[in-house]
């Protein structure tokens, strides 16, 4: 069982690495959490017992490891990292475009599968939660004030002492980041049909 599972897991390991690197913005740390997740998955393979698709289960473990890594990191970061986090999100976004600011062919958005169906699945909400957690703190706060609390942009800006245009920049950054995270973490890593 374990060796068969290890073989299946190694088939989607590259997707796991891509997902972890995107979340952690750090290649080495991404490799580390993937390794930890695979070890944890193999150690608990008896408990898995086919309750869910192996891939979905392993990605759930990976997400927990990523969140742990981010929590650990947030304990050690400096205040200046606020801007550094925003910058690294912008770099990730910029990398989707060619020099002329049009989509690179391999990163051009493609329609999501069936978002309605996704909303029915508990796993999907866990992915979304993980995507929210990895947003830089202030970016996440602004997005949640707008979309969860339904505040108008002016209200958010004045509450957080930001200019209106800065608020729009932050919301754009948050949406672009969440869109990419959901594409990588859910819509793009759907288990392939048998």
């Amino acid at each position, binding site marked *: 069982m374990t060796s068969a599972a290890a073989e299946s897991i190694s088939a989607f390991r590259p997707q796991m690495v891509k997902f972890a690197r995107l979340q952690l913005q750090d290649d080495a740390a991404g490799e580390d959490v993937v390794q930890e997740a695979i070890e944890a998955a193999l150690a608990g393979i008896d408990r898995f017992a086919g309750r869910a698709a192996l891939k979905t289960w392993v990605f759930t473990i990976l997400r927990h490891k990523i969140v742990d890594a981010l929590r650990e990191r947030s304990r050690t970061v400096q205040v200046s990292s606020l801007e550094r986090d925003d910058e690294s999100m912008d770099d990730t976004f910029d990398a989707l475009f060619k020099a002329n600011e049009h989509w690179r062919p391999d990163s051009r958005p493609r329609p999501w599968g069936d978002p309605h169906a996704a909303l029915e699945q508990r796993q999907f909400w866990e992915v979304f939660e993980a995507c929210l957690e990895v947003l830089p703190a202030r970016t996440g706060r602004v997005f949640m004030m707008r979309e969860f609390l339904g505040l108008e942009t002016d209200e958010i800006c004045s509450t957080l002492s930001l200019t209106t245009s800065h608020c729009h920049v932050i919301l754009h950054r948050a949406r672009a980041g969440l*869109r990419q995270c959901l594409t990588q973490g859910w819509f793009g890593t759907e288990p392939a049909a048998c």
Partner: protein
Amino acid sequence: MLTCKKATRLMSDSLDRPLGRGERFNLRLHLVFCRGCRAFRSQIGWLREISHGFARWRGDGNGKD
């Protein structure tokens, strides 16, 4: 001519403020020709739906504390 990157900003802004007439025109023209941006627009629209659904899901006692 609007670039895709600038179009994503306008599409995001349109969820938070009314676009000006020129902005609307440029964006509409761009979307006619750009599949990638049409997908982007649909997806950030979904993000709003998803966020409302998420608040409900959390409200039902799911997720982390």
